[in-house]
């Protein structure tokens, strides 16, 4: 109860502010309508009308929730209007990209820790790769791959991987280097082969770093997938849903898709967190 109360307080404050903003931002349309009809608007009318518009500037929270509920439960999950359908399309590409990005980040980190040449050469490129806006790169990747006949999940997964490998790389380079001099010296006294140093010391020591990076990485993979769904007229996925919503001014649809994406991200991070708890507990490292 002690933990729920502060959360509820913050949520309540946000909802109140949101309703206030909705009334304020949507009032212009109501006044315009009234002026055109030559009528006066009472405050009660203003409030009720700003919250029931079909294409409001800012949908009220209950409109977004209704849109979200309709998208999740109100449609057959095979329907193009179902958020479950679009969510699944996005989720599958996110997972594929996340696995790809995690593998790439891990392999590069292991290389960097073991080879000075890789340390000097790979790291600057990895950092440079993240300074390029993903919004600029995503359409090019999609177009180039499409010209090669690769469409659908793979290009999106590649962009998701492009965003998610970086936190894994940075976190794991730090994590694999976490063992101190004494622990490395100890293994040296056993004349330990490098592979065994990696398996028995470096990887186990890096677990807390790994899970911290995985949480960032999985969220980045989702962002990457959604960005990849925006260009080139993708027809499925939460990104496509956002885009078609903005084409037709369906603000409620945009916000519902946005919330679906946020919930999906939260769920993914929670899954990684649960994996972390189980792993650290099994390793005897949970407090």
């Amino acid at each position, binding site marked *: 109860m002690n933990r729920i109360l502060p959360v509820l307080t913050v949520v309540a404050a946000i909802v109140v502010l949101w309703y206030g903003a909705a009334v304020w931002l949507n009032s212009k349309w109501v006044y315009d309508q009234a002026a055109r009809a030559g009528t006066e608007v009472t405050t009660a009318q203003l409030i009720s009308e700003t919250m029931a518009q079909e294409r409001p500037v800012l949908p009220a929270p209950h409109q977004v929730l209704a849109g979200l509920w309709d998208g999740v439960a109100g449609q057959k999950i095979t329907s193009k209007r179902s958020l479950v359908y679009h969510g699944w399309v996005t989720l599958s590409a996110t997972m594929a990209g996340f696995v790809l990005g995690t593998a790439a980040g891990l392999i590069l980190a292991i290389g960097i820790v073991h080879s000075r040449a890789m340390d000097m050469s790979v790291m600057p490129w990895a950092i440079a790769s993240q300074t390029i806006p993903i919004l600029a790169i995503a359409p090019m990747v999609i177009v180039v791959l499409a010209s090669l006949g690769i469409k659908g999940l793979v290009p999106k997964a590649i962009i998701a991987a492009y965003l998610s490998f970086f936190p894994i790389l940075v976190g794991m380079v730090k994590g694999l280097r976490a063992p101190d001099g004494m622990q490395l*010296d100890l293994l040296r006294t056993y004349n330990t082969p490098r592979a065994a140093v990696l398996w*028995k010391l470096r990887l186990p020591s890096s677990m807390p770093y790994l899970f911290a990076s995985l949480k960032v990485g999985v969220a980045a993979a989702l962002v990457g997938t959604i960005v990849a769904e925006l260009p080139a007229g993708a027809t499925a996925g939460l990104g496509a849903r956002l885009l078609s919503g903005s084409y037709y001014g369906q603000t409620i649809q945009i916000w519902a898709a946005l919330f679906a994406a946020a919930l999906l991200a939260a769920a993914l991070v929670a899954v990684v967190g649960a994996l972390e708890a189980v792993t650290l507990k099994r390793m*005897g*490292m949970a407090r």
Partner: protein
Amino acid sequence: MAAIPIIEARGVDLVFQTNDGPVQALRDVNLEVAKGEFVSFIGPSGCGKTTFLRCIAALETPTGGTLKVRGMSADDARRERSYGYVFQAAGLYPWRTIAGNIRLPLEIMGYPKPDQEARVEKVLELVDLKGFGKKFPWQLSGGMQQRASIARALAFDAEILLMDEPFGALDEIVRDRLNEELLKLWSRTGKTIGFVTHSIPEAVYLSTKIVVMSPRPGRITDVIDSPLPRGERPLEIRDSREFLEIAHRVREGLRAGHAYEV
């Protein structure tokens, strides 16, 4: 001492290259240690006692002189897994149980599974930690953790046990007990032990040979062969005249080293 010394240092020099220029860590260190001896290295901090121990373990490489361990170069001796090393901190892996930590060198060295279990049991008993194998390190006190790290160094059959201030972080009461146990362990296993300390009573109580060192540059100022009996030494021996005489000589050696400095 007709047999070949197990550790033999002739004119060992070590110069570290640092950003502030070269630092002479060891100068002209000469020492012979016979098999089965308990050698203590004592001196103030910066005297190179730990550095010399690390040279024996081939964790540092001397820049001059010769250093032979079991008749071969220190690095070959390391490859042959000639010694177990106990560090200042226990350094147990928090994700492994006590038994798992002791099994670590055995896994790396490729001992067969059933043999691993038998050895873990044996050394756990040797360091008086029987029944604690399934505990995780954080569930044990500092003294028990250090005993587990000694067990880890004993688990494989190394002839030499090198210990770098293993009890430095422990309180005196625990330390006395562990010293007593270490002596018993030494007489039971017959290993050669190299032991770094900055405590005079500890050095005198444990050793058959005490190497007194002084700093800047690190060098040996005195080597004392202890007349105290080998094997069992009750703690009360520390009140005996012989004990006090050796302790006095060690103190003089340390003081002489410092006088040179000032």
